[in-house]
């Protein structure tokens, strides 16, 4: 019941009063729409109070307004890893700044005789309310952190519910006392707006930001020269300030986005146990492959004969791959005469590995640039980009006892027996170039 009044009744009363009384004041007492500045009376303390107060409160209010009017953009922005911490820190820092500034302003308003002369009760009420509101807000933020995140699901829908005449108390019904106080303070401030100096919210000279500098023409030489120098100085100071602001903004944004990622890059990944195992397994496999290759190289260094396959595995239409003495690919077929046909499979055009399927014309094909090579002679076809033939490779057929039954050196006739029955018992070997086999 009380909640319903405080959080639905009071807000509507405050908003309606503010609007009506505000209009009346605007129509009947236009000149009262001012900030009633007392700068001419006391300006040193005013600088140290008003500047931090206004900067602080404006930043904090801007955060509230963006969260209220652009909750999706706000949520998206806060999803960036460091954005949340930066925004929360900025909020607390600016609140502290505002509190400090307001403290100085209160001190000034109470102790300075000149300022006391123009102080009304309303001023004191306003300044106390503001101080209370910001202190309560600061305490809320510190005791229930990351409010910038949870506010989009609670306070923002509550406000929009009020604005669309569809108020829903449940959003704020279970808030802690501190938040409820902060909400109440906000409604009270809005209520008091047309009756106090808070009206100056509507008198902010925004057009000054874009206003061209006033041109003053001095009529004495000294003043004129001084004015010119002062203008240039002011312009250069303006440029430096804008420059510093831009560069600082850019650095801040970059630090926000890049610092954590760069740190993580150099920190390296911390994979979990499963990922670590998979990585190590992959590494082991690759090492195994390299070990196998070194083994092959060693074999070719040491041995005069390298085994390819058993004679019975040779086919006429599909070659078997092997690695020759130059660590290049080679193919072994069974020739029409029953003898092995062993040629290099490294395309003489640009070195791709030639395919192992034999087509109807007794040719194998290199897939890279489509050259056909006859397996009998190794010659490429006429239109092939490859011009040189695939060189033959020396082989030997060795039987189970280790005796060389037949062998052939490249370019020479077959040596040994060509009896197919005998050969069927043998295994095909490569012979080391330059060595004679027994």
């Amino acid at each position: 019941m009380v909640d319903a009044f405080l959080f639905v009744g009071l807000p509507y009363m405050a908003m309606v009063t503010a609007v009506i009384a505000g209009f009346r004041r605007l129509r009947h007492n236009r000149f009262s729409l001012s900030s009633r500045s007392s700068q001419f009376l006391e300006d040193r303390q005013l600088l140290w109070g008003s500047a931090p107060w206004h900067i602080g409160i404006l930043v904090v209010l801007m955060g509230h307004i963006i969260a209220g009017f652009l909750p999706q953009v706000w949520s998206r922005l806060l999803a960036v890893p460091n954005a949340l911490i930066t925004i929360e820190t900025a909020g607390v820092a600016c609140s502290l700044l505002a509190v400090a500034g307001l403290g100085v302003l209160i001190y000034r308003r109470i102790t300075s005789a000149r300022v006391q002369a123009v102080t009304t009760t309303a001023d004191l009420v306003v300044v106390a309310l503001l101080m209370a509101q910001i202190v309560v807000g600061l305490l809320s933020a510190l005791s229930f952190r990351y409010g910038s995140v949870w506010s989009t699901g609670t306070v923002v829908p509550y406000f929009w519910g009020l604005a669309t005449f569809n108020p829903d108390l449940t959003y704020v019904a279970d808030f802690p006392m501190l938040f409820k106080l902060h909400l109440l303070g906000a409604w009270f401030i809005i209520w008091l707006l047309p009756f106090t100096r808070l009206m100056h919210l509507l008198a902010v000279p925004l057009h000054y930001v874009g206003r061209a500098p006033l041109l003053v023409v001095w009529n004495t030489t000294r003043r004129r020269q001084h004015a010119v120098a002062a203008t240039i100085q002011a312009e250069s100071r303006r440029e430096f300030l804008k420059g510093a602001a831009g560069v600082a903004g850019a650095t801040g944004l970059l630090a926000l986005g890049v610092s954590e990622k760069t740190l993580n890059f150099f920190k390296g990944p911390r994979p979990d146990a499963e990922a670590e195992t998979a990585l190590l397994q992959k590494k082991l496999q690759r090492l195994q492959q390299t070990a196998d290759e070194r083994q092959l190289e060693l074999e070719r260094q040491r041995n005069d004969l390298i085994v390819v396959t058993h004679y019975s595995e040779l086919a006429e239409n599909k070659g078997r791959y092997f690695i020759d003495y130059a660590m290049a690919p080679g193919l072994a077929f069974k020739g029409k005469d029953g003898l092995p046909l062993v040629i290099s499979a490294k395309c003489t055009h640009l070195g791709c590995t030639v395919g192992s399927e034999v087509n109807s014309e007794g040719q194998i094909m290199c897939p890279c640039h489509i050259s056909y090579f006859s397996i009998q002679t190794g010659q490429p076809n006429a239109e092939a980009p490859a011009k040189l033939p695939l060189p033959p490779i020396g082989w030997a057929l060795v039987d189970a006892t280790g005796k060389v039954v037949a062998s052939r050196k490249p370019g020479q006739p077959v040596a040994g027996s060509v009896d197919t029955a005998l050969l069927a018992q043998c295994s095909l070997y490569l012979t080391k170039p330059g060595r004679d086999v027994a």
Partner: protein
Amino acid sequence: MKLPESIQRAEAYLAERFPVEKMNYTSLVLKKEVPIHRLAWGYYLGGLALFFFMVQVVTGLMLLFYYQPTVSDAHASVEYITEHVPAGALVRNIHAWASSLMIASVMVHLLTALAMKAFGKPREITWVTGVLLLGITFAFGFTGYLLPWHQIAVNATKIGLQTVEEIGKYLPGQMAAWPGQLKEIIQGEASVGQATLSRFFALHVIILPLAIAAALGLHLASVQLHGMSQGVDEKPRRQEKFFPNFLLKDLSVWGVAFMVLFILGLGLPFESLFAYPLFEPFNPKGSTPDGIKPEWYFFWVYYPLELLPLWVIMLGQGVLGAGLMATPWVFKNTNRRTLQLIAVAAGAYLVVMTVFGERIYHLFKG
């Protein structure tokens, strides 16, 4: 003591090319002006190439923290960077894209410098160091491409080096074997393997960077001392101050280039432009996948190489190389209109051969 005439002349020649009296704040910053004319956009290309180079250095150093230059681990280390290291995929993708962008901007920079006759006296040394930089940049591309040790990397390198060996068939007698031996020296062993990877890695990571630092130092010093060349035949009516106007525009171009590179790096993995079997680990015993070809910036010489006899290409390369080096003297008296036509023709050839090279090849070879 009176120095001999030749040394005096050499001294005067160098003094004109390196006017060290201009190495002061007034000349370098305050008074420097940049002409404004319809080709003035070309003035930004050198800086753009420098920007991409700096990106390469930074991303390259970051990749260096994780890359392992051994045949058993190279591919796995690159996979590790892409899949496990936080932001690793982004750094690697930026490195790949920036390499192509750097080479592209260097090539366009060459053409515009030619068209603007930026090699005229006293800027000859700028031009010559620039040609050296061009060669070093292409060498960066060629050596870096091998490092991931996947199918297209190793096979494309093999094919590229095979061309060196092929020169041997034109040489008589004993000399026929020299190109093959040269190829083996470059490779470090009989066929592309660990030795090749190690030396390409050394080249890519320290030797070429030192070389480019030296050439770049001379090139930039010369540019800064002489300022931007006139660029067009009629004296430009407008000039803008180098500092701060031109410098700011130059930095804005860098900003745009950075955003483009960042968006490409985040959004477009360069592997998606190729078929996936090309990126599998290199398998020396298996078959070679389809589609092996060198990087796009070699197409202007690769497809002609496939279509024409080798000696034509070698001759062309020789003429091109000598011509490029000797441009400041060969084209000393050429007017800019002719130079612009040459630059446009060369540019058209490069674009057509790079984009349509494969189709042209099939047109002739069926």
